[in-house]
């Protein structure tokens, strides 16, 4: 009988243990400090232009310009709230024996120029490919300008040759432009 009494005691001890069990040393409010910092990579513009395209009816075309309008991504509320830095990476592969200048202009809806950057693609050295790479970092004020951008204008300008030669239908080489954006986000509770 004593034995079964002991069993009873053990049993109720377990019950008490169950009822008094607890959750120790945890802080669920920590979840409020959660910050996510993903970096989104996205292709931007690209083009591949043969040297002969810079000539029309025997005359050299100096400037090629085109635009991308109605860009909505930078003015999205989510982007305005959470984008903290943007790197635009451009890579130009030039196999034409001429220098090019590239302008990238950022405009808002009323075509006000917000930001521009220019870089030079070095000439090919006897049809060897010459790669020029630039990274433009957008932070603070420049980033704010980017967040109002709805239009991009890209201008490809052929710089004068040192020997006065011009490109014609039979000129060789090409200029290849590639780019990507790295968008740094900061998402917090």
């Amino acid at each position: 009988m004593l034995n079964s009494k002991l069993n009873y005691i053990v049993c109720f001890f377990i019950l008490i243990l169950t009822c008094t069990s607890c959750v120790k040393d945890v802080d669920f409010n920590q979840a409020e400090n959660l910050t996510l910092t993903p970096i989104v990579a996205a292709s931007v513009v690209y083009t591949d232009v043969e040297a002969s395209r810079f000539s029309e009816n025997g005359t050299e075309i100096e400037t090629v310009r085109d635009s991308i309008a109605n860009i909505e991504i930078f003015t999205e509320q989510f982007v305005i709230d959470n984008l903290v830095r943007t790197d635009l990476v451009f890579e130009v592969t030039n196999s034409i024996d001429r220098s090019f200048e590239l302008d990238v202009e950022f405009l808002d809806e009323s075509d006000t120029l917000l930001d521009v950057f220019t870089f030079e693609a070095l000439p090919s050295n006897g049809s060897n490919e010459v790669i020029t790479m630039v990274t433009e970092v957008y932070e603070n004020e420049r980033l704010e300008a980017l967040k109002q951008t709805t239009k991009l204008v890209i201008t490809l300008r052929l710089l004068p040759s040192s020997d006065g030669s011009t490109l014609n239908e039979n000129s060789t080489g090409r200029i290849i432009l590639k780019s990507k954006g790295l968008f740094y986000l900061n998402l917090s509770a």
Partner: protein
Amino acid sequence: MSKRVIVIVLMLFGFVTFAQNKQLLFGFNDIPQSVLINPSTTPDNELFVGLPLISHIHLGFGSSGISAFDLFADDGRDFSDKLRQVIFQLDNNDFFMATQQVDIFSGGFAFGSGIEKDRYLSFGMYLETDAIAYHPKDYAVLAFEGNATNIGRVFDVSDLNFTGEVLSVLHVGITKKMNDKLTLGARGKIYSSVFNVTSTDNRGSFITEEGQNNLLIHTFNIDFTFNSSGIASLTEDSNSDISNDIKTLRKRLLFGGNLGLGLDFGFTYQPSDQWTIEGSLLDVGFVRHAKDIETYRVKGTYVYEGINPLFPEVPTGQTAEDYWNDIADNFEELFDIDSTATKYTTWRPTKLNAAVRYRFGKKISKDCNCYAEDGGYLNAVGAQLFAIRRPRAPQLALTAFYYRRVFKGLQFKATYTIDSFSFTNVGLGVSTDIGPLNLYVLADNVLEYQNLAKAQSLSLQFGLNFVFGKGQ
């Protein structure tokens, strides 16, 4: 907390499913509800009436990879770092689950044509919640790191895989002793679904690679479906009066919801006095969702390499702007959420239980130093196997147990279980009779009760029944 964090926390913890394994209740025939684990288990009574709402309450949760402590420990470490560590440590087969079961009413009685009542009829109705969510690893990695540092990595759309439901179950079962050795049992069930959310059949991928024409190429191939039933009417109605919603829910519990059918089967085979082999298959059934349904689908394929604004080589005379608009349209189309009401069927999480049991040690009477007349063995040891069908792969658990009848009104069962959650799950159960009142408490993972936050799974069952004619 902002909405975003709530969503993330929900993703990780919201669909916590209870550990469905009832290793303590299985075969514990002093407790009337043991007949729900194997319909061929003959309860040790002539008649039982469960106390409404408290005859059987089961709560449980499980997390295969981590405990709340891993993430929320008050250790001064940055929460984002801890979450990152957890996200990378777990793989997409890790899961979180929760289960809850409450008897609304239950009862049973023995009957039969002969002197010895060879049949047992049991019935009742219970409310069940069951949910499981797999670790959405690739989504979490994408949210944490983005794609920039994951060039070449395939993000798998199927990593989002979860299902959750609340339903009521009306059941009637019969246990029949076929001969001295074999007892068979079966139970029919009618399910009435209150809510269901299911997203278990997602496919596709997202990948960013080094491109040919541009620095990067992005390939989207997405087929994502989310089904729900019983949610739309409650969230969309304009009335703020919660009593109307409660009325709706009450109707659904009583067969006003989406209905389904199911069956349980079981056998108990006793080749000898001391050996028992038994097995059962539970919830072989489905629910057909046809009322108050919503389906969201995102389906599409798109390859994006960037925009070619200069000299776009388009023979149709398309301008750069048209070309750009085309790209924008393609993206919009890809991520356009197609909302419909498509009927769907969910399969219940079918469970398998099996056991082998050896009984020994009869009570010795003090008066005559011989076996006492009330007979029966006092001890049992054995092994049990549990399996449950889950969206990705079945979950398994293996249990060793010891059962002890201390005296007529007090029985214990202790279990040691190995499963997806831990290798150290020790469970203890006790059933006691005070007059006709049967009280039981079954708790697993008792070693974790000193700090519940460290437990990766817990399951607690308790209940009160009126039991008559025990040990006869």
